[in-house]
């Protein structure tokens, strides 16, 4: 489907890369929710996933490796009427930006955090990522990865994140529905998007994910943190769908109180001269 977010641009990804269907899903989800490129910002870090907004017609800040959540939080806090999507890979989010990831959950900004999780470093040509499975052999980790894989959804659930979901981009139809839920959710929404790298990860491929994933059914209560945690710890078969929701948390933008009665973004506000004068004169 054609969307307002389409951009005529040569795409740099390898043929068959999971980023292609991910790009399609995000453009369609935004369009179907009547959002506009002018009022949407995508903040990204470094990596192949981080190039996503280059291939879209949308406001973007493609910043430094690991730091994209910081831009996203600040953009939303500066102008809450923007739809802010923070998007990057597993290395950017869980490794270089690990601390920012933990604290972004604590802030609970109203942003969507999409993590393209391919369990390998693509841009730097095939080293292990924080989500690589134990035993995964690379040119660097040539005796196999020995570190415990980073479980983003489990950590998010442990921190009481307001929305935690997992998608497998081999299924664009269901993924899009989950993306739309995340976008509509008020508060921090994590999507750990299983998004295969066809060049450097020959283990966790499209067929592998198809075999090792399943959708949670309606018997799962996403408001139950303990149950959600149990699901997120399953590694033999990875559950897909909305794993956890904590919808009653105040967002960061609500907590700072600035926008309680007035949604004017910071760039359109000005200093109250009378108040300034009163403040300065109080030092006499």
């Amino acid at each position, binding site marked *: 489907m054609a969307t307002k977010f389409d951009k005529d641009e040569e795409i740099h990804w390898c043929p068959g890369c999971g980023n292609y269907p991910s790009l399609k899903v995000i453009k369609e989800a935004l369009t179907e929710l009547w959002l506009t490129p002018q009022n949407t910002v995508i903040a990204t870090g470094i990596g192949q996933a981080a190039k996503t907004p280059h291939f879209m017609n949308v406001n973007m800040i493609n910043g430094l490796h690991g730091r994209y959540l910081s831009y996203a939080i600040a953009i939303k806090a*500066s102008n809450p009427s923007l739809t802010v999507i923070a998007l990057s890979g597993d290395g950017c989010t869980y490794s270089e930006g690990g601390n*920012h990831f933990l604290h972004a959950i604590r802030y609970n900004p109203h942003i969507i955090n999409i993590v393209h999780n391919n369990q390998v470093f693509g841009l730097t040509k095939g080293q292990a990522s924080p989500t690589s499975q134990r035993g995964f052999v690379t040119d660097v980790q040539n005796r196999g990865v020995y570190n415990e894989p980073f479980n983003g959804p489990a950590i998010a659930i442990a921190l009481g994140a307001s929305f935690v979901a997992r998608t497998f981009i081999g299924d664009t139809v269901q993924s899009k529905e989950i993306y739309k839920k995340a976008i509509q959710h008020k508060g921090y929404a994590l999507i750990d998007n299983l998004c295969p790298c066809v060049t450097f990860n020959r283990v966790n491929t499209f067929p592998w994910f198809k075999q090792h994933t399943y959708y949670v059914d309606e018997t799962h209560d996403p408001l139950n943190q303990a149950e959600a945690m149990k699901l997120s710890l399953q590694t033999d078969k990875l559950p897909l769908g909305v794993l956890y929701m904590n919808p009653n948390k105040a967002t960061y933008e609500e907590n700072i109180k600035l926008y309680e009665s007035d949604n004017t973004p910071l760039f*359109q506000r000005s200093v109250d001269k009378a108040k300034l004068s009163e403040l300065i004169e109080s030092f006499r």
Partner: protein
Amino acid sequence: MTKTMKKSGYHVFSTKEYMSRVRGGENSTSFRISSKPVHAYVDRIDFLFPFIAKGLEHVQNRLTPSTLIIGEKEYYEKSEYGQQCKRFEVPFQTIAKELGGTIYSNIVVVGLLCGLLGANLDDLNILIKGAFGDKGSAILENNIKAASKGYTIGMELRTNVEVLPQKISLIQDKDISSDYLLSGDRAIALGAIAGGCNYCTFYPMSPATGIPTFFSHHDLEFSMVVDQSEDEISVMNKAIGASYAGARAMVSTSGGGFALMIEGLSLVAAIETPLVIHLGQRPAPATGMPTHTEQGDLELALYAGHGAFPRIIYAPETIEEAFFLTQMAFNIADKFQIPVFLLTDQYLIDTSYNIHALEYTNLTVEKHFIKTDTKYQRYKITEDGISPRGIPGFGTGIIRSDSHTHDESGMITENAVIRTKMVDKFLRKAEAIKREAIPPTLSGSEDYKILVVGWGSTYPIISEALELLGRKDIAFLHFQQVYPLHSSTTRFIQQAQKIISIEQNPTGQFGKLLKLETSRDVDAKILKYDGYCFSVEELVEKIRNAVNSFPEMKEKTQESFIGSGCDGD
């Protein structure tokens, strides 16, 4: 203390040095109360109020036979220091205990000083009511009594010719009572608000935390987002995100925190977004002396960040200038879409004095962004290198900012021609930036032979030292924009036969920068890096020694120097 003295019509100055501890240690606050404006730290102590047994040892180098120690016998009698000083026993703690607890000792001391220096007890009482009015009537009453008790002792001491043979003759000037009383960090915070700052991120770090703390008490009043973030990396990148979204962003930190922000600084340059960086210096490397002072991060601010890009570094010379330069920093950052540094230090931040006038009513917040249309390109090549700045959500254009080398639309590129054009574009801004540089101020004789050069917070101390030294062949050139230097710098430097640089760092960083810009070496360096600010007396001595090290410039007589100096306070 300072508030009461000011209210009573005296010029006041105070600065503190303290240890990096939650409680205790040896800390001191120095006050100057004067009939003339006083803006600099002096070593000399006229009245010392020790609060701990180690107090005398802590200030041993500042004690003279004319110092009068006032306080508990136990704090001076057994000390091997201060034997040369005069003493006057006042059992502050016993007095305070009788009034309800040792906690009131401080107020007894303040009362005593007010009585001693002829300040008005009514003024003190008004301030006490302001400070303790909401703490319950018993506490307020005890404080009033404590002040009054101290005041009586002070009054008696004032006329006690045995202890004080020299009459204290301070002149009260009622005009002063309505002066502003500002500290460096308040001046920076107020300047930022006046500059339209509405987004400040920080991670607590001495001596820079006071500014965001102040903001946090006024955030809703001035539409500010104040954010204590998880680390300085996030602090910097949040400020960048806010700036991208159109906020007037600032970070406040010290050297170690700034070190973590350097990667982000490079992004500020790459995406050409405005940002004000307050870097309050303290002794380093590493943790150094967290609560002390130094001017050791000039080179850090100057060279930080991978890649070459324009920047501005202001180093306010006074508290008033800290206000005005901070205000201006936001407009300049917005205009040129660059990082602007405010390089201060613990001394400036923790120093207060009265200021007669602060002309702030005509200051304006200059916003330099546009409403975009569908053809908008964020990085349009322009003659002056400044691309009109769009804000996401304002107009129909798309705002694309990229840390990669990008084309005019913000799209990633590896094209050699575009890369060169883009680098040239943002370097072109440097010419206009230099044209708007703040010139250094020259004080003293126009036909000088010796030029003393300083920068930043040392201005009032060097000024007072040179005044005392009173040599007609010395002029003082002071910089509060340390980068880029104003074009007049070379002319001032060339006229000097000898140049003495005065800096609070171990390597003479500004002297090196001067050489780089003017090809002229300084002839003598006065450097201090013990963590404590220069004193007026210390500089008188060191400047004289430096001058005497030039054979042809030697002083003819030593008498021009007033030994005890700093009269009138």
